[in-house]
């Protein structure tokens, strides 16, 4: 897409309306935990965070009218992050696995400042 088209596409977006939607979504994410249901909190907090990020990327960063390779590179990096998570999470989140066991000094979480000073960081 050439730059003149890129610029024209920007002018059709009602930015104040997008901002208003983002503010309403912020209100929902703040109100979610008040209901007291964990699943609702997760959806209103992280589900709405994804929607807000999409709205900002699409309407403010104009990633949808950018050259096609730009969103692809962004998605590729996000996939790398998921791979990092999948690779590292078992070491962090599990206490033992096939032919390995986490030493107790690593698996003990630090609950208090005193525990932290004693070198008991998870």
């Amino acid at each position, binding site marked *: 897409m050439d*730059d003149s088209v890129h*610029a024209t596409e*920007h*002018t059709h977006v009602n*930015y*104040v309306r*997008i*901002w208003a939607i*983002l*503010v309403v979504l*912020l209100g929902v*994410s*703040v109100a*979610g*935990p008040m209901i007291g249901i964990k699943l609702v*909190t*997760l959806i209103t*907090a*992280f589900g*709405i*965070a994804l929607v*807000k*990020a999409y709205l*900002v*990327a699409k*309407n*403010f*960063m104009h990633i949808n009218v*950018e*050259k096609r*390779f*730009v969103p692809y*590179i*962004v998605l590729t*990096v*996000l996939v*790398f*992050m998921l791979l*990092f*998570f999948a690779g*590292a*999470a078992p070491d*962090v*989140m599990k206490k033992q696995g096939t032919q390995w066991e986490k030493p107790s000094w690593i698996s003990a*979480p*630090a*609950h*208090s*400042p005193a*525990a*932290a*000073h004693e070198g008991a*960081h*998870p």
Partner: protein
Amino acid sequence: MSARPIATTRSAAGLPTGRLAVWWVVVSEIVIFGGLLGSYIMYRLAHDAFAEQAAHTNMWIGAFNTLVLLTSSLSAVLAHKAAVSGDGPRAAKLLWATIGGAFTFLIVKSFEWTNEIQHGFTITSSTFWSFYYCAAGLHALHVLAGAIIMMFVASEAAKNLELHRVELIGIYWHFVDVVWIFLFPLLYIAK
């Protein structure tokens, strides 16, 4: 011969090189913040102590700062719109409004941190607070860097010079906003 820097006049891969460079920065930053947030999520899911510690953060302060950043993103994109229409002075004014949002965010953050430190929650208190100060601190540094760069861009834009830079700093600023959109639920809501 033009005296303008080559980065403002040249295109690569179909994009002006300035915009290509900003996207490259954004992609690199995704890896930095993504690694940090991914590590935080692993620890948060594995240790209930994180939820106990997160209960001490103030959701209303976090929500207010989210509103500030969302509003500053609006002024940044309106500055871009003004720059596209060739109205440099208006773009500059809107960028200064964005800078105002950046410093509001930082001032609120400094009061918030002062309060937390006074209550004994320091970067060495526990792994949660180490993540909290590292993630929010790294983000605050990005806010500060963006505000400083925006000052230079706004002073040029006011003279109708280098208006394409308004879009470039805007892309960076919206990314900083997106990072906070994820930091907010992680640090302030998931308790």
